């Protein structure tokens, strides 16, 4: 009995506790991301945004959640009910699943996987299933067209995301996310890989179906794309899944390019006065700040750029990003071999 408690029960409870420690702040962050997006875009367009529910409108996300919960769930006739309800669940689950390997501070990670980067890539490439299944199961033309667009778009941009990741991995010499961040001590990778940093961020916008690549739910042509037939909580799961994906992808950008939980003190030797102050700040604060920065850029882009046309989107993915990231990969490998800088 004691063996069972010490060997299985306590570690199992500890894992569940760690999962809750990750999942609850992410959920709250996601709720306030929807609020932040509306307020920021409001400010950019010289409007007020939601400011009525609670002080400064801070209770707006909860009001929205309650409203959605009390709506009726409508299932379209001729739809495939199991797949129809499975789709939003898959989208939501996948967005949470990725956090299993993301380290928020040195050692603060649920599973320190040896192939963490591949795991992240695998999970983010599965996101397309939620959308495709939703589009097919809805038995509606708008939803189907949105799903088709989305499948092609996500598969195209995954290619360049994968190639950029390989360039970064070559420089770090590890597939483990913790080691990847440790390797950036002194020089965050967004400086040596600056073109790839920009390219990766744009690909991430396309991968999360955000503006200016939100063709799967282009409201002026497709009503709401793959979400047309969804209502109530099943719609909410899609909506929240999109925002959780944004947070997850921002975490990925910060780990691959912005030095994860590392503070800027190693990067700025000139600021030696500030070093003790900066070193005192815990790593998780830096990580959250970096994620917030990326999320702000997500929202900023949405308020600034018009939507791409579909053929332009495909052209950008296949004819610009793919060759460029391939050439950069060869350049990186050549540079590392020539200057004998390959990590061991």
């Amino acid at each position, binding site marked *: 009995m004691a063996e069972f408690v010490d060997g*299985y029960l306590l570690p199992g409870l500890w894992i569940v506790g760690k999962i809750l420690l990750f999942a609850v702040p992410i959920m709250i962050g996601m709720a306030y991301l929807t609020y932040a997006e509306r307020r920021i875009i409001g400010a950019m367009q010289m409007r007020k945004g939601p400011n009525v529910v609670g002080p400064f409108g801070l209770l707006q996300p909860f009001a929205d959640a309650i409203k959605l919960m009390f709506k009726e769930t409508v299932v379209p006739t001729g739809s*495939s009910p199991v*797949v129809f309800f499975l789709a939003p669940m898959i989208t939501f689950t996948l967005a949470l699943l990725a956090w299993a390997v993301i380290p928020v501070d040195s050692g603060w990670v649920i599973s320190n*996987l*040896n*192939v963490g980067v*591949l*795991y992240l*890539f*695998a999970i983010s*490439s*599965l996101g*397309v*299933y939620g959308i*495709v*299944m939703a589009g*097919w199961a809805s038995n509606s033309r708008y939803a*189907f067209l949105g799903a*088709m667009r989305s*499948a*092609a778009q996500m*598969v195209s941009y*995954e290619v360049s995301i*994968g190639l950029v990741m390989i360039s970064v991995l070559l420089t770090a010499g590890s*597939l483990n996310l913790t080691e990847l961040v440790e390797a950036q001590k002194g020089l965050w990778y967004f400086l040596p890989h600056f073109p790839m940093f920009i390219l990766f961020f744009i690909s991430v916008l396309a991968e999360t179906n955000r503006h200016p690549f939100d063709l799967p739910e282009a409201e002026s042509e497709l009503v709401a794309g793959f979400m047309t037939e969804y209502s109530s909580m099943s719609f909410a799961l899609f909506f929240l899944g999109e925002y959780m994906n944004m947070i997850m992808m921002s975490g990925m950008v910060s780990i691959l390019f912005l030095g994860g939980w590392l503070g800027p003190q190693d990067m700025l030797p000139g600021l030696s006065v500030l070093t003790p102050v900066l070193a005192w700040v815990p790593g998780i604060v830096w990580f959250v700040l970096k994620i917030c920065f990326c999320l702000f850029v997500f929202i900023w882009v949405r308020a600034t750029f018009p939507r791409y046309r579909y*053929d*332009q989107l495909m*052209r950008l993915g296949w004819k610009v990003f793919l060759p460029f990231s391939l050439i950069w990969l060869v350049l990186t490998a050549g540079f590392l071999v020539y200057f004998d800088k390959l990590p061991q």
Partner: protein
Amino acid sequence: MIIATLAFYLFAIVAVISALNVILQRNPVHSVLWLILTFFNAAGLFVLLGAEFVAMILVVVYVGAVAVLFLFVVMMLDINITLIREGFLKYFWAGAIIGIVLLVELAVVFGGWAMSPEAESLRIAPAPAPDALSNTEALGTLLYTHYAYLFQAAGLVLLVAMVGAIVLTLRRRPNVRKQKIANQVNRSVADTLEVVKVETGKGVS
């Protein structure tokens, strides 16, 4: 250890059930979805074997790319199930005979399988002990150091297949208006704009 055994049986049972469902489902889209579940459980089995790299690549390549294309194609087909079932009995016997012949052939091949000692000695033993290296490194050394030329040859075969597929499906359609980015970028102000002083009552021709 108990957890690993339980996990093995979970993955194995779900894999077998979902593989059966791939061929038993009437709706082809459901078949593809079951196939994806099968891939997932195979990846789980790889993780239990300690081959996490292969497991992740299986998910990235098969689930993330190949199955998406399957789904893409199958969803767009308008398959009428009653039409498919019409000729079922007519072709059943031909199919059954082909199946039996294949089964017998497989049995004969595997029954008489033997490796000659020369071929056995040609195989490179996994040079450093697999325990000393991580998965990724072991695979990398094997593929890119010991079998580099074979790897390149495989890549060339795939390239030929890709070029072939593009040549077969590409058709040039005349009279289609396309956006030419180079022309747009090369346009200068002088080509497109002209500032004219218009005299009152004369107009511009």
